[in-house]
């Protein structure tokens, strides 16, 4: 009798093990599930339209936004970004020298995983690495210049679908998984995760704001926010989100934030870049 019980227990464990293995990291399956969730939740929204955030879910806001787009509030920043991008460094080199395609129309490929350093390189980080390589000081990740530069680069990629690659490298998979964990982890005194707002409650109001869906949420960045009275980078958005749930934000471009950006961009692969965007 005991022999059979032990045999049954061993069998049960051996059956359970493959199920656990199936819980392994599978970004492609995650992206499919992620997309399906939003498509099923909002059957009347066209897939590409998720890149327009709350405007894809609220008709009144959409009308106002479309009118604002006639004279978009990010236009000045766009001009500044173009000038900054073209301005040579002290050594005569340019930002363009640091990027494929001279930096034009490449925003959809960021963040990328750098197999040399084993790190996620966001567009913001790539810009500062470029500066430092050319003997310039790094600029603030939450400042106006970074917002302007990324706005210009996003503008040159408008309409191009996100094309984030996860190479066959365990470190890249780990970075992706870290980003996913960060996205779903509750934090701050309000006990909110990113998913609490952007998965469970998109389309609902948080005070005067309509919450954006997580699918395509980074496609519109950087954004002009009326609440900020100016442009804001992805870094600024993450920092302010953490503050809003009463958590102490991490330092801009912390590994967790870069991994989060990697995860969120990957699951939005195929959706067009719509940045720079504007929000109330």
């Amino acid at each position, binding site marked *: 009798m005991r022999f059979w019980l032990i045999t049954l227990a061993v069998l049960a464990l051996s059956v359970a093990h493959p199920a656990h293995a199936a819980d392994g990291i599978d970004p492609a399956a995650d992206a499919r599930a992620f997309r399906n969730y939003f498509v099923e939740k909002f059957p009347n929204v066209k897939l590409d339209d998720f890149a327009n955030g709350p405007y894809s879910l609220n008709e009144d806001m959409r009308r106002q936004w479309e009118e604002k787009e006639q004279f978009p509030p990010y236009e000045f920043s766009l001009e500044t970004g173009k000038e900054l991008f073209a301005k040579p460094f002290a050594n005569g080199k340019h930002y363009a020298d640091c990027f494929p395609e001279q930096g034009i129309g490449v925003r959809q490929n960021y963040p990328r995983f750098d197999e040399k350093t084993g790190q996620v390189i966001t567009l913001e980080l790539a810009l500062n690495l470029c500066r430092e390589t050319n003997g310039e000081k790094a600029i603030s990740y939450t400042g106006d210049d970074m917002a302007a530069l990324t706005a210009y680069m996003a503008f040159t990629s408008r309409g191009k679908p996100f094309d984030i690659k996860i190479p066959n490298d365990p470190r890249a998979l780990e970075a992706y998984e870290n980003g996913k964990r960060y996205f*779903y982890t509750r934090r701050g005194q309000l006990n909110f995760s990113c998913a609490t707002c952007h998965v469970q409650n998109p389309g609902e109001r948080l005070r005067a704001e309509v919450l954006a869906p997580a699918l395509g949420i980074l496609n519109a960045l950087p954004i002009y926010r009326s609440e900020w009275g100016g442009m804001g980078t992805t870094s600024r958005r993450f920092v302010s989100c953490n503050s809003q749930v009463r958590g102490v934000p991490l330092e801009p471009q912390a590994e967790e934030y870069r991994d989060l950006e990697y995860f969120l961009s990957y699951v939005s692969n195929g959706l067009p870049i719509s940045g720079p965007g504007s929000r109330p």
Partner: protein
Amino acid sequence: MRILSRAWMPLCCVPLAFLTSGAALAASSDADFRSAYARADAAEKEAGRLRNQWIATEAALTEARAAAEKQDFEAAIAAAKEAEALAKASIFQATNEKDAWKNLEIR
């Protein structure tokens, strides 16, 4: 006179004893604050190691330091205790979320 002195001596000692105990109370309050603050600070550092500090904890620690500077140890100790409780709650949250995050995951 000698009798009178003996009679009055305990009475004279009352204010002296009161003053002494008052000083002891103040000293003990300062020590209590330092101890309460050290506990709160240690808990907040642990929350920092877990990358999950709360704004309210930082505010309570600042409040505790400000009250202590004004020698208001009662308020300082209360704020330090609040900071410790908040920091411990954030540690619990971070520890609990090590696995609980999976419950929110889209599959």
